[in-house]
């Protein structure tokens, strides 16, 4: 059987985007939780818990953009102009947040500190919201003629995209709270447990409402999920979400430390798989498939040789860095 390089690349890019969502999700989530956790020492612990890894987390977003350019240039060249405003706003928010990350510890005055905390929090919130909006607008479809985007520059703004924006903010907040349960102790951990419960519930409501809205507004989506054979492939997803929700509630009640975080990641993974099932085989819904958007086979092969060696290597040393900074983070005795 001949290797379908396009399929391999689609899986690789999808994996990179998921790794980004999983990893930057919890560190954006920390910023989203800032309004709920106000003491300086708690906030210091929160930021310290991701200080050694956030650069690496954000690099997966660069791989998402760069990989899309390399492997599916037609998708890159149509999706990015279509989502121009939310993407630019997201990038600006990430600039804000990244600089605030370094600066909030170094502000000379409490007032300065407060401003950088606000920049960090708002930057995280806006970045997450814009990513959710971009996701919603993308799922709703992008108007393409020939090889170019032909829609307007406000097309991305719909009630549905606002809904997905809110849902993603809530979901990232949940990831952040569960990360804190795992990585901190004492008072802050108790706060995180209290936050995780309503956030978990809100995330599940978000998943349900977004799914129901998709069923209501999209014909192809209905066909995929409510007819055979799509129903057979898709059916396990909502069932697993339900089981995981039960496990999550259990984990919170029993004050488990790692499993709430794994359950939260599970919600994201299942939603992501559900999205994949809905879109397949399109990369620019509703019209362009992964094969139509794929770059030249020579380019696919040339980068794949390197990726086959480098991606496992990257994952290995990323895991090593996480392992190196394992354990609880406490005030004043972080990584110093």
């Amino acid at each position: 059987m001949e290797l379908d390089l396009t399929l391999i690349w689609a899986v690789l890019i999808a994996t990179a985007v998921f790794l980004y969502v999983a990893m930057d999700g919890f560190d954006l989530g920390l910023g989203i939780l800032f309004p709920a956790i106000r003491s300086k020492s708690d906030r210091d612990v929160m930021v310290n818990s991701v200080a050694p890894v956030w650069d690496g987390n954000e690099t997966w977003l660069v791989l998402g953009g760069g990989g899309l350019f390399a492997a599916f240039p037609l998708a890159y060249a149509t999706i990015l102009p279509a989502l121009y405003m939310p993407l630019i706003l997201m990038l600006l928010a990430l600039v804000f947040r990244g600089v605030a990350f370094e600066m909030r510890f170094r502000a000379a005055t409490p007032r300065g500190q407060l401003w950088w905390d606000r920049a960090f929090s708002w930057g995280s919130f806006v970045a997450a919201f814009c990513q959710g909006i971009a996701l919603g607008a993308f799922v709703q479809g992008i108007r393409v003629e020939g090889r170019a985007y032909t829609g307007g520059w406000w097309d991305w703004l719909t009630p549905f995209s606002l809904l997905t924006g809110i849902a993603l903010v809530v979901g990232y907040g949940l990831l952040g709270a569960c990360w804190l349960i795992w990585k901190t102790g004492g008072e802050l951990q108790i706060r995180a447990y209290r936050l995780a419960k309503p956030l978990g519930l809100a995330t599940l409501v978000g998943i349900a409402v977004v799914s129901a809205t998709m069923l209501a507004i999209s014909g192809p989506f209905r066909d995929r999920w409510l007819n055979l054979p799509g129903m057979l492939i898709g059916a396990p997803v909502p069932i697993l979400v339900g089981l995981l929700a039960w496990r999550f509630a259990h984990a919170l009640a029993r004050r488990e430390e790692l499993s709430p975080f794994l359950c939260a990641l599970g919600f994201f993974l299942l939603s992501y798989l559900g999205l994949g099932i809905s879109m397949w085989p399109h990369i620019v819904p509703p019209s362009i498939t992964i094969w139509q958007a794929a770059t030249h086979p020579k380019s696919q092969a040339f980068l794949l040789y390197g990726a086959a060696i480098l991606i496992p290597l990257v994952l290995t040393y990323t895991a090593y860095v996480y392992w190196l900074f394992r354990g609880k983070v406490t005030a004043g005795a972080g990584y110093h």
Partner: protein
Amino acid sequence: MSADLLPSALDLARAQFAFTVVWHFLFPAFTIGLASYLAVLEAFWLATDRDVYLDTYRYWLKIFAVAFAMGVVSGLVMSYQFGTNWSVFSDRTAPVLGPLLGYEVLTAFFLEAGFLGVMLFGLERVGRRLHFLATGLVAGGTLLSAFWILSANSWMQTPAGHVLDADGRFVPEDWWAVIFNPSFPYRFAHTVTAAYLTTAMIVGAVGAWHLLRDRANPRARLMFSMAMWMAALVAPVQLVLGDLHGGNTYHHQPAKVAAMEGHFESVARAPSILFGWPDAQARETKYEIGIPGLASLYLVHDLDAKVTGLNDLPRDTWPTNLPLVFWAFRVMVGLGLLMIALGGLSLYLRRKGQLYDEPWLHRFAVAMGPSGLIAVTAGWVVTEAGRQPFTVYGLLRTADSVSPIAAPAVAASLAAFAVVYFAVLGAGIWYLFHLFNQAPRPHEPGPSADQPVRTAGITAAPAVGAEPRLHPAE
């Protein structure tokens, strides 16, 4: 209002790209050299076990953390801007450029970001040797990043190893020829050397600043001395590399060199024009003052050689802004010559044993602090404005590369970038100056997050006699 008074979507997209890339490159231009400098400092520390190296390392590590973070976030913007604003360019060039950028992310960005955490926070956790390895990997990552991105940029300047398919897309034929395209070795050598000099000018200026306050501070002496060695040895090398790069450009992009030189007529014994104003309408450089024959000498290495001028090249391949290219080139070369002068003076005073004792030298070095950043930016303007009106030289015009985005959207995003970059990156730079202004102290704390930032003045300087003599800088 007449439509041609308003900037077009194309002009705005160009302005936005220029604005974001110039801001972005300020940080890597500094951190590429700084990462290598940190690796050298840590190597000396491991070899000699002397605190002065560790203290100086930690001093610059805090600065590196801030500059690197700003490089990451402003660079993230760049990786999306090709698609948002230059979608046609992206679609056509992706088969060639995509894998190069993909390799940059996979070989360089992950390496840098992954080991930066270890470098900043990991010394106690991993021990000295592994920590040195992490520093080395970050430094290596910055160089790999420069390798791939400059290969991609060079391919746009001197495209090779590809064919054009029916859709007007560039399809790779020979990867070796794509990556090592004709201008790449020259551009890579010239740019990395420029980054090293940029770092040397900043490190030297900070060292000199503290020597002006306390000429006995051994950490200030160390950084000043190392930076001045760099200026003395590498600035002249850069002149040679620049000349070779210019010769290569003359061969492949004669219109760019003609714009740099202000040459309109093709003449033998072409003059090197020192000052003047190239006027595209009049097809001549006005008010020119030049040295006859010099341009023939350094471009063709023959005093009598004929040098091609703009008038012998098609008008629609001329760079669109001739005075910009002309003057940016003079700024770059002028600053390069001043760096050579600084290096030479430092060498002279070092031989006399007065390197740390002449305040005028230190003031000169302080004044030269931003010279590397300005020169790098000017050089960037020369090469990028000089290859207009093309994105892929000779093959794809800038006007045919742009996204179908309405002018108001691009204008709004450009305004937002301007506000955010000046506010946020400006605050970051202000903070860098705050760090520069703090004297490097013994037992310099690392970039630990909850350490209060103490302002140490001259009074915090150590007892001078207790410090060992420096090595190898003295």
